[in-house]
């Protein structure tokens, strides 16, 4: 808690709260990063589950590099948003649920990436094997869940 109080009191936290630009800048970047990370993750999940099978999965997998760039934008902008009200967020159930979903989503993306690197030659033009499809379904649930809970933090 002392750390969170310190985080809020840093000159960055202070700037983000009081400047006219701070919050819009962070929230704008957070929306852009989300669209890249969640949008690409969902498109890849759909492919794993058997949609647009004409696209070779090995090629689509390369877009994950761009997805991680989106994630980096959101890790940074999200840290900034958190610093604005760290002591409030840390007790907010919706925020904590979102963090858990993002964490699980990142794990599914990592799992899919390594599975694709190992074996996608065999399912390059079809749906993926059962176990990998399960990971894709979990991934959809995590990223949709993270987007929903993230948006609703402002209301719950």
């Amino acid at each position, binding site marked *: 808690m002392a750390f969170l109080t310190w985080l809020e009191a840093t000159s960055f936290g202070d700037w983000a709260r009081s400047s006219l630009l701070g919050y819009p800048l962070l929230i*704008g970047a957070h*929306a852009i990063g989300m669209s890249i990370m969640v*949008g690409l993750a969902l498109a890849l999940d759909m492919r794993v589950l058997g949609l647009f099978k004409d696209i070779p999965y090995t090629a689509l997998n390369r*877009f994950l590099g761009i997805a991680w760039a989106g994630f980096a934008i959101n890790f940074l902008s999200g840290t900034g948003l958190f610093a604005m009200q760290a002591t409030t967020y840390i007790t907010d159930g919706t925020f904590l649920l979102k963090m858990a979903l993002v964490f699980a989503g990142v794990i599914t993306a990592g799992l899919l990436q390594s599975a694709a690197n190992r074996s996608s030659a065999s399912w390059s033009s079809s749906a993926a094997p059962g176990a990998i499809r399960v990971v894709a379904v979990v991934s959809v649930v995590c990223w949709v869940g993270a987007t929903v809970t993230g*948006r609703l933090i402002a209301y719950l």
Partner: protein
Amino acid sequence: MSTLYDWMTSTWINGLVLDYRWTWPALETLHFLGLCLLIGAVLIMDLRLIGFQRVIPMSAVHGLMPVAIIGFAINLITGVGFLFGDPHLYVINYAFWLKMVLVLLAGLNFLVFLFKVEPSLATLGPGEATPMSAKAVGAASLVFWFGVLTFGRLLPYLGPGGG
């Protein structure tokens, strides 16, 4: 202008959006999910047009089109909900009009792609570089859609009553 406001606020859409506490947050959440579907599909299609991952056949990329269209449809419907729910918030805000112009430009750019550029790509061999027209349409699409997203998200902080 006030007759337009009056008409919008007298419709059943206005009632649906304002009479229930959860309609607005639910519409916002759906608007976010729609934008993720749209941007995800658009990113892959446009980057392929620009020249990224040429091993993907151009015809296969077309398979992502329904995802983009579904995402756009979700956002058109939820967007109409916001506008009819609280027209005063939007009609006087330059960021809203800028966003609408960008949506229009993205739509026109899409038509150029569909009717002018895509037919010319049919003869493109696997791994072959895309023509300049395809790169231009792809780059313009990315600029327009990320502009739409940015001005949409920043709408509450721009224009009169913003902040």
